[in-house]
Structure formats: C-alpha cells, structure tokens
C-alpha cells in the first residue's frame, strides 16, 4: 500500500506541475486488459498439458501455453517515463513430477555397499494439483529516444509481488516407495502435504521490452515480452534434473512438497511471457 501511495503522490505532483509531458495528444492515462502467454515447458498448464514434460503426470507433447490475464492502469509522468500498476491473474497446475523424500525406515539395512547407492525408489505423487496466482506490480516504462509516452518502444521494470494458492486433493495424490535392496516391496501411501489450500508469497522483479501503438487516438495496443528476473535466474536449476531425479532422495519432504513445487511452477509460469494488451487512453 505504501508504494501505491507514493505512486499516487507522484502522479498528482506531476499533473499539477507544468511538466514536459505531452502524453499522447494530451492524454496521459491508459488502462486496459493484457493477455500474457508463456510456453508450458517442463511444467503443466491448468488442464494438464505440457509441450515438453518433466516426467510428471501431464500430457506431454501437447501444444500447451500458460496464459495470464492482467488489468492495468498507467500514467505518463514525463515525456519518457510512464508509471503503472497492474494485477495479473493466472491458473496453472503442477503435475507432480518431483518425487517425495522418504523417511529412513527403522531396522532396515538399506544401503547397498556394492552399488554405493540406496536401494529405495520413490515415485512422484499421482495426479496434479492446481495453482492460482495473483501478481501485483508497480512498474515504470522508460521510452526510447524520440518516442513519447504512451506511444512507442519502451523498457519496463518494477517490483512484483507474486501471491499464489495451491489447492490439492490429498487423497488422490498418493505416492509409493519400493525397497529393492531387501524385498522389492512397494508401499503406497498418502504423504502428509499439509493443508489442502496453501497460500504463498514471493518477491520478484519485472523486466521487459514493449511497443505501444495508438489506434484511432484512443485505443492502445501494447505488445512485447517480459521476464520475472528472479524466476529467470532460477531457470537453470529449475529445469535441471534436481527436482525429479535426486530430490526424491535428498530434498523434498512431504510437508514441504507443495511449497517447493508450487514455487517452481509459478516461477515457470512467470519466467518469460509474451504479452498483448489492449487499453483505452484518456
């Protein structure tokens, strides 16, 4: 709220001063709707599809994209700077590609000295769980030389608060574990995921480039691409095998499974998106 207050204050200040901002034909506000699209790579869409899966339960090889819907309002502070606030909504799913770490069973000799490996094998839980997210961004657009906000090419940046909620059916998300070293016995069980509805919040930083066109002097058509910088930096580790092959043995506990995997997934959705916005300038 504090940052919104600062933004509002700045707008009022510049509106009263004889700023050098022309806006577009004197119009300095624009508000509208934006559609963001990102490929569902190594992650699932809300309806369980992925272009190139990660060994999870999503239908791999599909033409799958995550979509995000945005409402935004922007104001031309100066000839080259535009400030904006946006709320983005998206829905996705995690297809439970990651395995769950196990607890050391008592009285079992489970380390095979010949193969230097544990002889347990776990699988990811069955099915998937859904995630809905809301991103709040305060951002600034810096227009390139010769362009005048809100018209032209720009660079966009600003802090983003990602909030998201995971909803899961714990009874459907059963996992299994097999002990090869001893009996080859497979045990199916329901991990302790925690609540069926879990909220999380993450901070990120929005970066991108875009091009704003004005049609018929009032309609704004804005297109380009942007990234969430933190999510982008995690790209390599997120798509590496860590979460599927080794996580089962080394990392994700039952109770942290949703938090960890939901974080991966939302990073994936917000990592890189192309967008097309349509708005009204006034």
């Amino acid at each position, binding site marked *: 709220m504090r940052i919104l207050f600062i933004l509002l204050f700045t707008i009022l200040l510049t509106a009263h001063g*004889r700023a*050098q901002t*022309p806006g*577009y*034909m*004197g119009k300095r506000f624009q508000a509208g709707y934006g559609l963001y699209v990102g490929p569902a790579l190594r992650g699932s869409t809300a309806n369980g599809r992925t272009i190139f899966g990660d060994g999870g339960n999503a239908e791999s090889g599909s033409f799958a994209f995550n979509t995000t819907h945005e409402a935004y309002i922007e104001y031309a502070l100066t*000839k080259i700077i535009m400030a904006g606030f946006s709320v983005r909504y998206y829905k996705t799913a995690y297809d439970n590609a990651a395995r769950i770490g196990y607890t050391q069973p008592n009285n079992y000799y489970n380390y095979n000295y010949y193969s230097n490996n544990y002889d347990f094998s776990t699988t990811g839980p069955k099915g998937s769980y859904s995630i809905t997210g809301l991103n709040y961004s305060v951002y600034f657009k810096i227009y390139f*030389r*010769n*362009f*005048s906000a809100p*018209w*032209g090419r720009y660079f966009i940046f600003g802090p983003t608060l990602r909030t998201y909620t995971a909803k899961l059916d714990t009874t459907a998300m059963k996992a299994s574990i097999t002990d090869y070293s001893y009996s080859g016995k497979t045990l199916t069980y329901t991990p302790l995921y925690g609540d069926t509805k879990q909220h999380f919040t993450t901070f990120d930083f929005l970066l991108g480039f875009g091009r704003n*066109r*004005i*049609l018929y*002097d009032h309609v704004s058509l804005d297109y380009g691409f942007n990234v969430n910088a933190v999510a982008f930096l995690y790209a390599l580790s997120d798509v590496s095998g860590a979460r599927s092959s080794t996580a089962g043995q080394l990392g994700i506990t039952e109770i942290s499974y949703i938090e960890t995997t939901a974080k991966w997934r939302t990073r994936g959705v917000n990592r890189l998106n192309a967008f097309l916005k349509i708005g009204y300038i006034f």
Partner: protein
Amino acid sequence: MQSISSRAFISAMMVASGLFAQQNLSENYVPLKSQGTLPEVFTQDIKKVVKQDITDLNKSKDNDKNLKSTYFTEANYEIEKIVKSGNTLINDEVSLYLNRLADVLLKNNPTLRNELHIYALKSSVVNAYSYDKGYIFIDLGLIAQAETEAQLAYILSHEISHYTKKHNIQGYVKNEKIDRDHYSGKSYDDKLLEKCQYSKEFESEADLEGFKLFELSNYNFTQAEKAFDVLQYAHLPFELVEFKKSFLETDYFKIPDAYQLKEVSSIKNNANEDDSKSTHPNTAKRKVAIGELIKNRNNSGRVDYILSEKDFMYVRDLARFEMCRLYLKNRDYPNAFYAAYILEQKYPNNQYLAEVISKCLYAISLYDKGDVRYNKDSHLSDGIVGHSEIESYPQQIYFLINKMPANEWTIMSLNYIYRSHKKFPNSVPLNAMADSMFTLIKNVSWGISDFVRTDQKKAAETVVKKDTVVKEIKSKTDMIANIQQERINNNHDTAYYKDIYLDLFMNDKEFVSKFPAASNVEFTPSSGSGFGDYKPSRNNDYVKTEVKRKKKGKKGDNIENNVKIEKVILLEPFYIQIDRAADKIDNLSSDQKQEKLIETVKTIAEKENFQTVALDPGLLTSGDVDKVNDYSVLNDWFFEKFDGDRNSDGVPIFNTDQVENLVKKYGTSYVLKIGIISLKGGRKRTWFYSGIIDLKTNKEVFKLYEVFREKDTRDLINSKIYQTFFELKHGK
C-alpha cells in the same frame, strides 16, 4: 470555361482598374505577383476529378486502361502541385501576356483555346512544359531569353501541339511499358535509349505541328528557327555585354587593371552534340527540320510582333528583373550581379537593381569571409566557381570576385552599398545593408586610419592639437583628431583603395558617424530588417576560411530551450513517400498523405488553442490570392535559407524585403514548417521535421528532427505534431 471574349473582357477590366498599370521600371521594380480570382484547381476536390477521369476512361475501349488510370491520377496531382507550388503566377502581367499570345495563335480555334490554361512559372530555367488537360507552363527564364514575340509564340505553339497530340499520356504509357518489360533482356541503357528515341519523335512532331499552328498566324517564319538558338544558348545570361570595372569605381576609387579580365573565352557551340540519351533532338537537327519547312514558304509580310513590340519588351524586362530575384534566391550571386548589371545599363536609376547588386556585393563579402557557404546540396553545388568554367563576358565578374582579396571586396562593397543608400534613401534594404557593412568593417578592426594617407595625416596634424583625444565623434574636426591618434600602417599607405571614402569622410555626416573610426565608437545596426541583425561569426579574422560550426545540441533537442511561442505562420507541410522497391517518390501516396497531414496539423493546433495562420495552398478559397503570394514569398525565403548549408543561422536572407510586410500583416515573425519523409517497401524509415524560423533574426528557434525505424503510422505523426505544439506553447 471562359470564352475568349470573356477572357479579353476580364483582362481589359483588370487593366482599366489599374491592376496592371505598367510598372515604371526606370525607377523601381516590384516583384511579380498573382492577381485576381484563383483558378478552379485551387478549390476543386482532386479526388472527384480523378474519379471522373477514370470513369470517363472506363467508358472508352482502350487496351491500356490500367496504365492510363494511373496516369490520370498522377497527372492530376502533379498539375495541382505545380499550380499550387507558389511558383506559378496567376493573372499576373506575364501570364496574361502569354494568354494574349495564345489568343493570337488560336484565334480561329476557340474550342482549343478554351481548353488551355497558360501560366508563367517563377523559375530561372529556360524551358516550357505542357501537361494533360491543357496546362502549359512557361519558365520566366525562357521569357527572359526570348528575342521577339514571334519566338515566344512559336515555343507556345510547340507546347500546344504536345497537348493536342496527347504526347504526355502516350509518353507515360510507353515509358511504363518499357520499364515493365522484364523479359526482353534489355539493359537499363537499352531502355533509356528506347525511351529517348520515342521522346525525340514526340518533340520532332511537336516542332512540326507547332509550326503548322504558328503558320496560321502572321508571325515571321525565321523566328521559329531562331527560337532554337535561344534554347541552344540557354546556359548563357540573357544578354552578353562586357562587364566594365568602372561600374564599381568612383572619382576616388579606381580598381587596378589586374582585376579586370580583358580577354574572355569564346562561346562553345554544342548544337550538334550527341542526343542519343536525350529526350530532345539536338538543336541543329531541329533547326534543319524547321529550315526545310521555311524554305518553301513565302515569308514576306510576316512580322516579328503582332501584339506589340513595346509589350513584349516590357514583359521580357519583367522576366529579366525576376531573374535577378530568382538568382538571389538560388544564392547565385555572380549571375544575379551580372543580370542586374545588364539591366542597369538600360535602367541606371532603378532602385531594385541597386538593391540586387548591393545584396550580391554584401553576400560575396560574407562568402569570402566563410559565413555564406555552399555544399553539394546547394543550388550552386560547387559554390562560386573560377572564371575558366564560365563562358564569355560573365567571366569578368567571376574573375573580379576571385581575384580581389576579401578585405578589398568588403571595402568596395561598402562603398557601392553606402552610395546606393544615399541615392535611394527610402530603400530599407539598402539602409540595412549599409549598416551591416559598417558592422563588417568594424569587426575586422578597420578604422579611419586605414583610409588616410600619411601625408594627409600630417596635414591634419597641423590643424589639430596633437594631444586631442576625442571619444565621441561629433564633427569633422573630431574625426580628424582621431585620425591623428591612430597608427598608420605605412605598408598600405599606397594602397589603391586609400581614398575610396575620402569624399564621404569630408562631406557625409552619416558616414562619419557610422564608420568605425576606432574601437571607441559604438555602433548599433538597425534591427528588424533581416540584414542589420547580422553578426559575423568571427571577429578580426579575414584570413581563415574555416568557420566554427555552431555547437550542436542533442539530436532532437530544441535549438533554444524554453522558447515559448503562441502564434505562428503555418506553411504548407510537406510529405514525401519514397517507394524503395520502385526507387522513386510515390507522388500519389505523398499527395494523399500530405492532405491528411494538413488536416492533422490543423486539428491539433486548434485543440491546443495554438494560434496559427495557415499559408497553405490546400486550404484556400478563390479569393485568397494574397495568401498565394504570401506563401510564395515565404517558400522562396525558405528555399534560400535552406539551400544546402543548414548551419547558416543568422546569415542574411537576401530575398527578405517582402517578408517584412508579412511579419507586420500576420502579427508574428515565427514560421512553422512541418515535414515528413517516409520509406516504404523494404526497411521502414520515417523522418519527422518540425522547425520554427524567426523571420526577424533568420534563426531557427525551434527544431524537432527525428528519425524512426518505423512506418509512418498515424500515432507517430500525431504524437510528434502534438509534441511540437506542446513544446512551443509551454517550453521544453
């Protein structure tokens, strides 16, 4: 359409009402202006005209409908562009005279006569043009060169024949077909030769058909043949007379013989030059063809003048006076000087000629100093060339310019300009130029001592006490006292120009008061004239020719920050769309986009409550002839201002006299010009320019020049135009 009788009636009424009372050229000259009611082309809806032409075409059985349809579109826009260019003279003395000639030629063909629209074109080029729909334009350069009325009549007949034979549309169709023939394996040169060949055929046909028309009147046949000599020597001035240095001399100033070129080169005869890559046959061939026709005809009783010799001479003199103005506009000072010199022999007391010559002298002083510059985009792309590149007597002017050192030229210029100012004391330009010349003299530290011989100084010393130091010159004795205190450069004591101002020093209080006697004399030039405001870019330096360039601001920046302007004269915006694929300007698209641009500029200016006075031929009514003239004046002014060298801020615009009146009339000295150039096909580029020039100071006070790697979209254009008005109104 007006009938011949109604045209004659209108002309008679104009003469009767005093509109066309002949100018008294022995005293002064007033540049030609359009008069009366503007023709329909100014007010018509061109889209409707094009549509009608195409509808008519579609009713006919024609195999080239597509090509002709494009032709009609382009031709209509082209004609409109020329008529509205500001260079076309409407109902002026010269155009009316040309129409009277057409009346003579077509007295038995009123239908054809009524189809013709004949105008004089303000251009120094020696040419004439015939367009579709009977539009014929004759350059003033051609009229200035013509020797008789009959010659002009033959040239007009030639152009009328182009129209009656529909050469224009046929030529277009033929050209396009040759260009579109991709499968014949013809090279560019082959295609060019083919185009030139049939173009020459059209010209020959127009020569012969024109002669048939010419023959119907009672003009002397031999003048038709001589008309080709006019074309042959079009590169020479309209007359060849020896330039005598005595013209610039006085009793106290004699130019050394070394500065006078005694023997001038002969004139080359290129009549038989290779014309294979020319659109016209060479003049020798054309003369022979006409000669053949004349040979078998009886020429007795035929005359050189049917209208009147006096009228012809008068109209030709008007054209010749205009040539002086057009040469000045083109910054072609040697030719302007020579043209004025020729006319001065006939009209020695003409104020306008004194002004033209003064402007030339002053401009060449600035050129010598490096402040007037040329570059490859200038009309004179090579600047003022050496005399060896010129033919005949004009060489003498070029020789003098190049031979005389810059400082001596300045001294001589002040002498001529000041004396002209005394001769014509009511001339504002002469007064202002004289003041500016004093500034020039002062800025290079010339003082009275430079113009006094040592023995005279000694003589003065006997009269005035030696310790007299006079700060403020109030009398002749003050002046002499100051001379006494100044150092004399003995090396220059014998210089030929020492006595140049002697009589002025002794007898002319104004001269003495304005002449920089020493550095203690402060002199303020008169302002607001476009001349007096000129400040040389460098002080005390006549030697170097390199001039420090103005420090450039950031690209796109205003030239002067925070300039706030509330009212401007808005000149017709320009829009040029270049079709990269076709490697040519898309005239049709350019014109259509220009129309939209005009509307946009108008709308945004109104929306911003910005006061604009539109001087735009696209927005005129039939009674707006004054605006056409004003537009023409400003266009000429801009042409001169932006001729090649864009960094000439502050350098006088010599075509400035009439601009003064515009500033008073419209209540602002700021002129806004907006223009767009865009590329289509291949890589997209758009150039946007908006600039404001202050007519009083000749400086660009606002400039927005930006290049975009974008298409020329509506949002781009709107945004930039809005930015222009916003920044003008509120400052940057």
